[in-house]
């Protein structure tokens, strides 16, 4: 078995992981940076096609404290204000640092151009090029991290276990997909930056990589998760007609800039029926919009494919072209002429506010185990502002890398025996029957279950039933077939993803059941109101194989 040794192990090479690797390496540490796909090409960052919020104040006067106020307000009272402050205070440094590394933020009149977005009281959202911000910042980080001699990058290597001894993370075990074998890694500290959990849902806007592995790895290692019930559903993801080569969540900036109308299947405006003020402003919050759309569909007033219409027909063709030039051509190539037809849109799983519980040094309760990016829970509370996700990837990535470097143990204390459990499990996997129910098929079952029961609408009954069904699925984990062959055998990767999806789904369902109220992105149809008693955070930990919940008061600002 291949064995590697590093000072800092970074798991996941999206925006947060690459930033963490850079930050740790500039403290003089050796870094091993793993990604399940190719470094800098998987995960959520590359998919972020819109804007990055940071109070650099170049468009108009702004301050990080105002950005923090907006973030806390959007979070419906339960943001971890220490983490939210870190995001808002350090975001500007990261934007400017990225510019120094070559990111070409859009500029106007000699300054970085910043635009508005719902929930932000100032124009503070930077971007590179419409629909290309994520790929552009990922490319900058890829180049920068590749230029650092202390960073070793590994593609197609996915972590399957964090090894902990005497309360300290000592390293991990990973699957090397290109050889179909396990790798052990001794590390003096570890950063989990493997993103969120969008893959547990049937409808998802993110890339395929994020099956909740960060949460699964963390909780199995003894760390706590926080606020796992808060999944952000993006309200107006593209639904029909079929559109390729575009991010399904591309419609948001169209609405900000041009004011597309949301109409139900009868071509009536409806957001106002749910307490939103959308006419003319189009700045309704994401949670309310998702709620309103699904309510319309539930009431039989949806569009043919089960969503609602987004209509730009009232906007002249030349205005559309002026605002979105090349995108208009890409839409036409897909047979979509916005001047002649509305498109159908519907909510989709987009982001996870909950995640790994960390302190203000980005460290979990397991010594030496850190987290960064979307994997971290708490900064965005019950609802995230548009534009905060990439900012948190950069800000938390930098902090996690820095603290992981400075807190690295003097010795890894690695023992080959730490990998015994994973080795035995893998040996058993290799003995599996070659045909039958596959891990990929099981993933589909989990996705359906979670979408139907833990999507934008939830109820106590459905959550209970879903937990039962999930346990039944878990019982079948040992019977899943694994195709023969070692090299690039995706069944092996799929099987570990199923494990991550099962544990993460259980955490979401449990959190959603325990939170007996509606708040932000967590909407219970049986308990439609927010309750002051639930203005607190829910932690989940694993005790003897069972998820145990506890509640903590919200971390407020220090000032």
């Amino acid at each position: 078995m291949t064995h590697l040794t590093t000072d800092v192990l970074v798991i996941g090479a999206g925006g947060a992981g690459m930033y963490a690797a850079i930050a740790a390496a500039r403290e003089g540490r050796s870094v091993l940076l793993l990604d399940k796909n190719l470094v800098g090409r998987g995960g959520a960052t590359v998919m972020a096609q819109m804007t990055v919020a940071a109070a650099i104040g170049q468009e108009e006067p702004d301050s990080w404290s105002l950005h923090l106020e907006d973030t806390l307000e959007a979070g419906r009272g339960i943001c971890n204000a220490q983490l939210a402050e870190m995001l808002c205070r350090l975001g500007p440094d990261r934007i400017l640092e990225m510019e120094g590394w070559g990111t070409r933020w859009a500029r106007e009149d000699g300054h970085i151009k910043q635009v508005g977005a719902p929930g932000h009281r100032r124009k503070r959202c930077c971007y590179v090029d419409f629909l290309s911000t994520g790929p552009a910042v990922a490319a900058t980080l890829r180049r920068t991290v590749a230029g650092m001699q202390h960073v070793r990058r590994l593609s197609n290597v996915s972590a399957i276990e964090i090894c902990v001894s005497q309360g300290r993370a000592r390293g991990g075990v990973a699957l090397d997909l290109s050889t179909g074998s396990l790798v052990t890694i001794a590390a003096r500290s570890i950063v989990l930056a493997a993103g969120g959990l969008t893959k547990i849902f049937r409808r998802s806007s993110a890339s395929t990589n994020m099956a909740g592995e960060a949460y699964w790895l963390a909780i199995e290692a003894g760390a706590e998760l926080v606020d796992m019930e808060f999944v952000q559903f993006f309200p107006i993801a593209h639904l029909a007609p079929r559109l390729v080569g575009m991010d399904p969540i591309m419609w948001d900036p169209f609405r900000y800039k041009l004011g597309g109308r949301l109409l139900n299947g009868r071509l009536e405006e409806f957001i106002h029926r749910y307490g939103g003020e959308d006419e003319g402003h189009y700045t309704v919050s994401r949670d309310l919009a998702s709620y309103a759309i699904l309510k319309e569909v539930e009431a039989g007033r949806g569009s043919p494919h089960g969503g609602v219409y987004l209509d730009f027909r009232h906007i002249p063709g030349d205005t559309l072209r002026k605002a979105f030039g090349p995108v208009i051509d890409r839409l036409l190539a897909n047979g979509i002429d916005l001047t002649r037809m509305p498109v159908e849109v519907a909510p989709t799983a987009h982001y996870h506010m909950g995640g790994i519980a960390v302190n203000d040094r980005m460290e979990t309760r397991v010594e030496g185990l850190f987290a960064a990016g979307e994997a971290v829970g708490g900064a965005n509370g019950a609802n995230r502002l548009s534009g905060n996700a990439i900012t948190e990837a950069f800000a938390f990535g930098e902090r996690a890398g820095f603290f992981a470097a400075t807190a690295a143990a003097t010795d890894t204390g690695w023992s080959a025996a730490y990998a015994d459990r994973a080795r035995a499990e893998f040996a058993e996997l290799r003995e599996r029957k070659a045909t039958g129910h596959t891990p990929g098929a099981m993933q589909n079952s989990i996705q359906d279950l979670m979408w139907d029961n833990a999507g934008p609408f939830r109820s106590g009954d459905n959550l209970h039933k879903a937990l039962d069904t999930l346990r039944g699925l878990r019982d079948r984990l040992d019977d899943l077939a694994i195709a023969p062959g070692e090299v690039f055998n995706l069944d092996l990767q799929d099987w570990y993803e199923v494990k991550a999806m099962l544990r993460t789904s259980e955490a979401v369902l449990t959190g959603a059941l325990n939170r007996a109220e509606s708040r932000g992105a967590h909407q219970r149809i049986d308990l439609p109101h927010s309750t002051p008693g639930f203005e607190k955070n829910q932690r989940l930990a694993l005790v003897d194989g069972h998820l145990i919940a506890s509640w903590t008061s919200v971390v407020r600002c220090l000032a």
Partner: protein
Amino acid sequence: MPRVTPLRVRRGSTRDDGFYQIYEVPFEDGMSVLDALRWVRIHRDSSLAIRYSCINANACKTCIALVDGVVEYTCTARLKEAGTTVGPLPKRPVIRDLVTDTAPEDEKLR
């Protein structure tokens, strides 16, 4: 009658002793070649090796392959109802099936 289309996929772990396998895939207007490959992995043959990440957005750029003789991203190449042939990139070493060695040299584990 549900519409189906033949998808011919080059299989094998080297360029020279590969073979074509044909899968009958449900066809819908506008679907991508990657949609069909993903359908095959879930419903017909999970041993088919493919590389992709972003599914639909053409952002990750990792799903590149040879589609009907042309180098294309499988997430944006449309499936043809008359049939589509997919093979690995022509100028890269084949790892398995449609997966070629596209990682930078220093990102590989040896």
